[in-house]
């Protein structure tokens, strides 16, 4: 079985700098390097390193409490990591150390956008307004930091029309044109999820981080989500990093998968590699490595990839 070699590879990897990470994506947009996050005495994330390939959809999976959202919060500037580096390199070559940027600059300068596990829309504002808020930076500049805007100068009006056109296109893509002027809080759950993704995309991100985008969706909505994510990757060239529990989503659309357990990375590879990784299976089934074979046999997993 290839699992054994996979295991040793992972073990040796731990002590090497991530640049030497074999099998990783050739052109990473994001390099997470020895990331550690402690809350008081609790180590939520311990020395995690991985890469997100440019133009890839990378999934971050792991059992509940594995530290996935903490990794996300470190990447998107909500937490300052205790140790480690998070490097983002844009296509033009500018590199940002995300852990050093003030929270909002992670989006404004480094162009990393995110969504939240428990949706965070602006519920009283309309769908269109939600998207316009996401275009704050270009619009602020066009409105001369409000001075030109207050006076109603034409330059701002043009910029606003462009922004509305862009928002309208996204509203169309997520199929909400008929409800564009309704408060976002009135939308059904699935629509809110898609709107949050569209809002993040309106900031023109190079990396989009999605925290459990399929949570609470029905199978049809999940399928729609897959289509939307592929569109984002293929048409907009935006790299995607997502946390997900729904394996049908993860296995279908991910180019790479990183698995965390108890704050430590236990596997990193293509969906096929991950599917066959004993440590991953053990983590998900909650048993020791030695028992995996027994459990696999029990649940009939061994047969599927024999």
């Amino acid at each position, binding site marked *: 079985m290839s699992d054994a070699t996979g295991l040793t590879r992972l073990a040796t990897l731990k002590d090497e700098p991530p640049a030497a990470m074999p099998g990783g994506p050739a052109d990473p947009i994001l390099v997470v390097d020895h990331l550690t996050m402690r*809350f008081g005495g609790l180590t939520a994330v311990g020395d995690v390193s991985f890469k997100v390939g440019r133009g890839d959809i990378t999934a971050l999976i792991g059992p509940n409490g594995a530290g996935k*959202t903490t990794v996300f*919060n470190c990447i998107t500037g*909500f937490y300052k990591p205790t140790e480690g580096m998070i490097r983002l390199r844009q296509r033009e070559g500018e590199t940002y150390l995300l852990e050093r940027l003030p929270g909002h600059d992670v989006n404004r300068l480094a162009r990393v956008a995110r969504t*939240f596990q428990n949706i965070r829309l602006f519920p009283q504002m309309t769908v269109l307004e939600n998207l316009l808020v996401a275009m704050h930076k270009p619009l602020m500049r066009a409105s001369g930091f409000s001075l030109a805007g207050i006076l109603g100068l034409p330059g701002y009006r043009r910029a606003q029309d462009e922004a509305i056109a862009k928002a309208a296109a996204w509203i169309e893509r997520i199929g909400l044109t008929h409800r564009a002027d309704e408060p976002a809080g009135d939308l059904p759950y699935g629509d809110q999820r898609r709107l949050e993704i569209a809002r993040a995309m309106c900031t023109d991100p190079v990396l989009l981080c999605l925290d459990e985008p399929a949570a609470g969706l029905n199978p049809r909505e999940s399928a729609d989500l897959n289509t939307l994510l592929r569109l984002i990757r293929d048409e907009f060239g935006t790299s995607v990093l997502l946390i997900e529990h729904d394996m049908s989503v993860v296995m279908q659309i991910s180019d790479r998968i990183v698995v965390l357990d108890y704050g430590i990375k236990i596997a990193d590879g293509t969906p096929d590699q991950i599917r066959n990784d004993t440590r991953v299976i053990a983590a998900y089934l909650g048993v020791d490595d030695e028992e995996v074979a027994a459990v696999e046999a029990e649940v009939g997993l061994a047969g599927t990839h024999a």
Partner: protein
Amino acid sequence: MEFFAQQFINGLTLGSIYGLIALGYTMVFGIIGMVNFAHGDVFMLSSFIALIFFLILTTWLGLTSVALVFLIVLIVAMVLTALWGWAIERVAYRPLRGSFRLAPLISAIGVSIFLSNFVQVVQGARNKPVPPLVRDVIVLYENGQYTVTLSYKQAIIMTTTALLLAGFWYLVQRTSFGRAQRACEQDRRMAALLGINVDRTISLTFVLGAALAAVAGTLYLLYYGVVSFSDGFVPGVKAFTAAVLGGIGSLPGAVLGGLIIGLIETFWSAYFSIEYKDVAAFLILIVVLIFKPSGILGRPEVEKV
């Protein structure tokens, strides 16, 4: 040195009163995360209740035993103020659970305005003086020039505060109510699922807070011998400062904060300028909130994303 010692005693006395009020702030904040802005006015109201019962007992019923009068006034004020606390929570705060974030604070400001003006309307705007109940002092130290004294009033205030704190500490740490209260602080929904009557626990918290404010109110009347409808605001803000300084949500912190504020205020007035003593308290509030919002004994808050 003698001057310092005297001021120290005065500061501790004042601090005891602040600490008692601060407990009300800190408990309510601990359990529902709300700044009970009206608490200072509840304190003022309790002082009026104590005042009226003091007059009934002394002028109408002609009681002369100081200890008896003090005890009855204290208990009656605690009971009636607790009723106010209960009613306020019921009417103005309970319907707001699940409303938007600032709703309880705005409602509390409304209650605060209502209470002070209510007392003004029913009792008039003038200061209400009472004849001093106890005048005796204990001379602790004397050297010809200076005397350091501890008045009976101060002794009563410190003793009452200490006794009540001990009883209160027992209540919160050792009884099922205390457990329920701490459970509600941690996770209200989970507490409800485990069969804790959350509404009643919160109600009781307000009742206890108000009763402690009533103790403070009675002692305040005893100490200063005068009260007016506008006396709730400034002590209220100072007690809140004490709660924040000690670490809001922490009971020992509230008392500690109260003592510190009392001492700072007394020393500030004694050594710098009495005009700016309130400025000192407000400055402390601002500085603590900006630089150490978790206070001395509080736990730092982790932002949930």
